[in-house]
């Protein structure tokens, strides 16, 4: 039970780290913890976001610069990442080869004729107004709302 709890806790922590990384990856500018907290939208405590950002910084996943009393965080684009990028690019190209399907699982497969219409309809039916904002706009919006 205790091991299960600990694993669950580690998983939640990992998920939050990934969310924050993906959030910062599409932000146009470095973000403060408050901006990250707002962008994530969930009922996350400020301290949780703060702690996770610090942890990611200590893992050298993020860089930060002082901005007044807070830090602004950005993805750390070092040379390791450049190498990883090349590999990831190669893998992206490989995705269309069907024999890779057993080791690489894609989030979404290819669409078939008619799917586009069907999916657009389903999106409308599920009735959510919030369209995904383009990354730069989302970044600016969150900084503007910042008190």
């Amino acid at each position, binding site marked *: 039970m205790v091991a299960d709890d600990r694993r669950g806790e580690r998983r939640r922590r990992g998920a939050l780290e990934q969310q924050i990384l993906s959030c910062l990856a*599409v932000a146009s500018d470095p973000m403060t913890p408050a901006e990250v907290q707002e962008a994530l*939208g969930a009922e996350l405590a400020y301290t949780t976001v703060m702690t996770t950002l610090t942890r990611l910084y200590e893992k050298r996943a993020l860089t930060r610069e002082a901005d007044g009393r807070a830090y602004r965080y950005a993805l750390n684009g070092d040379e*390791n990442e450049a190498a*990883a990028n090349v590999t*990831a690019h190669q893998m*992206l190209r490989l995705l269309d080869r069907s024999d890779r399907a057993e*080791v690489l*699982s894609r989030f979404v497969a290819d669409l*078939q004729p008619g799917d586009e219409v069907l999916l*657009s309809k389903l999106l409308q039916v599920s009735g959510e107004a919030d369209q995904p904002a383009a990354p730069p706009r989302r970044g600016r919006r969150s900084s503007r709302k910042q008190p």
Partner: protein
Amino acid sequence: MSAWAWVPLIMALIAPLVGPRIVRSLPPAAAVRLATIVAIAIAASTGLVLAIAAELTLAQVEEITHAEFTRGVARASVISLVVGGVAAVAVTVLALAAVLSVMRSAHQLLQASRQARHLGEARSGLVVVQDPTPAAFAVTGHPGRVVVSTAMLGALNCKEREVLLAHENAHLRHHHQVYIQLAALAAAANPLLKPLVAPVRTNTERWADETAAAQVGDRRLVARAVARAALASHAHAPGQPWPPVSPMLGSRSDESESEIAQRVQCLLDPPVRRSGGLTALVLATAIACTAAGGAAAVVGHAKVERIEAAATTVDDGPGR
């Protein structure tokens, strides 16, 4: 051959027909596990039955050469010789296919984990690629990695991104590739089982969708994320042939629904309830199939020993 031998063979014919239908009435996690277990059980027991049929034939060939070659013996044995010969060839070819399949899987896994290492010290298992193509995938390895392009992240809002990450992490956490590879192995060892591979694959996606839904607590949100990601990927794949959709083509029957449309629809429908009875039935069938294969092997082997014993007495006969 004993009557037991027919059970796995008949199962191998029936399972691909009813399997996909049964899979649809099970929750995805149960569907993947059961379909994989059944496929492996049938592949193993049919392999066993074929092997024992081949062994029996070889023993009979020996018996004929040893025994006095009367016309009666020869005529009676011709049919079983043909059956056994076919079984011998089949079991050899299929065993080779299975070995090849295992080697292929091992090679792919090695390659993937090597590539996963090249992906660097992925922070928290996530690799973000600066790429204008919306793409996201999970790479099996130790540890596994989730690779997402910036274009894909940009196409989704924050909650939808959480869905995507939860979906890909679910693939890694629940070892979905293992199930797919086991099903592929079963299909290599018994090509009749090929129709079971696609349902296993599709249901790992459904399983990951439901895991993500449990994590974010909203199945409609997952449906939206999947639809949005699919539309974004499609909009960025100009190289692919894409017939313009006419209004007539737009309304298609449910049978021709693609995987994505099915996933989205399943998420919008109420979740499939777990059926203990159906699960037990499928498991019982798998066990019965394996047991019948085992029984056929035992009976067949005993027969082989009898034949060999008889041949030895014939051999010794003139000497005494």
